[in-house]
């Protein structure tokens, strides 16, 4: 379980999360929605340990993440951020190899196939379209073995067919794991999720 306990977080005078609590359980796929600037990505960054709450705490399977090293946090959760920098001309396969073999999911091959990356493996990430880069970024998060998967806008820049394939993947993964997906209301993906958390 991801247990978000009374988290407050502000940037300057701007309070983004105020005494916010929520839980995400194993075996469920939760949609995190809300308007622009409501704090969806901030919440992902807090759960990911990249930001630290001003007050309150976040626990993943009983571990207070602020007490864990980045390396140990990575065992508990895997995250696809909204944006990654693809500046260096690594090939797709080199990029996916950033996740060490021993930490890779058993589903790795399936994920690469479902996300349509098989034909792109030897291409340079710098030469891919934005949508293709988005799929590489998503794959990089999904092939990492973890208990929870947090995906920030995984459908952005993808066509309908790959959206459906991504949703199928998420549905399969949530059988054993917990999944939290940030998505705009406009994506029409509500019905696929077990539950929705709305941030205001």
């Amino acid at each position, binding site marked *: 379980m991801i247990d978000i306990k009374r988290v407050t977080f502000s940037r300057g005078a701007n309070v983004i999360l105020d005494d916010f609590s929520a839980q995400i359980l194993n075996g469920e796929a939760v949609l995190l929605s809300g308007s622009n600037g409501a704090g969806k990505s901030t919440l992902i*960054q807090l759960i*990911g*340990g*990249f930001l630290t709450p001003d007050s309150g705490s976040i626990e993943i399977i009983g571990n207070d993440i602020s007490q864990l*090293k*980045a*390396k140990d*946090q*990575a065992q508990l959760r*895997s*995250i696809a*951020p909204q*944006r*990654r*920098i*693809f*500046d*260096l*001309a*690594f*090939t797709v396969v*080199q990029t996916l190899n*950033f*996740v060490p073999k021993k930490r890779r999911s058993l589903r790795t091959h399936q994920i690469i196939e479902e996300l349509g990356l098989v034909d792109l493996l030897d291409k340079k990430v710098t030469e891919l379209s934005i949508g293709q880069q988005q799929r590489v970024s998503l794959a*990089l*998060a999904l092939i*990492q073995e973890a208990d929870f998967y947090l995906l920030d806008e995984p459908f952005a820049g993808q066509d309908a067919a790959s959206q459906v394939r991504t949703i199928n993947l998420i549905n399969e993964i949530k059988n054993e794991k917990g999944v939290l997906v940030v998505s705009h209301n406009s994506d029409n993906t509500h019905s696929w999720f077990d539950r929705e958390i709305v941030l205001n």
Partner: protein
Amino acid sequence: MKREIGIYIGGVILLALLFLLSLRIGVLHLQTPLFDILFKNNHGVDASTVWDIRLPRALGAIIFGAGLGFAGVIAQGIFRNPLAEPTLIGLSSGAVLGTIAVISSGAAVYGSRTNVYVAVLFAASTALMVQWLAPNKGFGFLLTGIAVSSILTSLAGLVITSSPKPSIQSLSFWNFGSLSLLNSETIRASAPVLEVGIITAFFVARKLDIYSLGDASSHYLGVNPKRIRFWAIIALAFLIGASVSAIGSIAFIGLLIPHIVRALIGPAHRRLLSISGLIGAIVLLAADLVARTAFEPHEIPLGLITSLIGAPALIILIRRSRAQWVAHD
């Protein structure tokens, strides 16, 4: 992979040939065959020229050239900026000021341990200062580095011109970047520091691939970006402090070599690091050979040669490279 092995083998052979050539030629024309000097018990002017002057100088060119290549790879990777190079972002000027300050105050002599440590300290402080002052990681960072660098260079100039010590004037040659002051003592003082820098650089390079995806991505994949930046600055300060205190500030090697190697073998940092080190050694050894033999019997500062070749190459590079790698904050 084949290409890399080819570069390694070709590079090592070229380095060995240049090394022998460096021992063989110079202002003094050897009367004794080099083989006899190296492998038979030989005394006299020829032997002492080779053993005491040319050998330390050639070894210095190899280790400091490699150090500059390593430093360029680490600086570009850690600042995610293809133009981040120790001379451009102020580290070298910091080390120059440190060296000049410590020598002019009489606290230490050129090439001593104290000189090397002070240069390392100044390089590290400069790196931190530029990072702290810079508004962003792109052009703002570079311009801040250039500004800080020119302040430190001016300060160094002031110290030199106002110093009563006549010996400080002889540093002006060093100031342009030159291996002419190198001797075995200097190498003994700076090599261990350089070594620490190299080991740290290899430790850092393993993580730079993941780090290249951005701070958040890096953290999510288990690599703490703040920690890796800390170690990278340590590596840079040791590499640059050691080489600047010994041979002065030499521009463009650390900038251009990683670019050339990246174009040949791709961006993976560990391989990039080792091959850039090899090529750095070759280039510095070759440039020094030119510096001391082209206008015999006069020697020209090595830094002038690397700048004369490097600056136009930089312009070509800027015109060709897509600006995207500089634009990120």
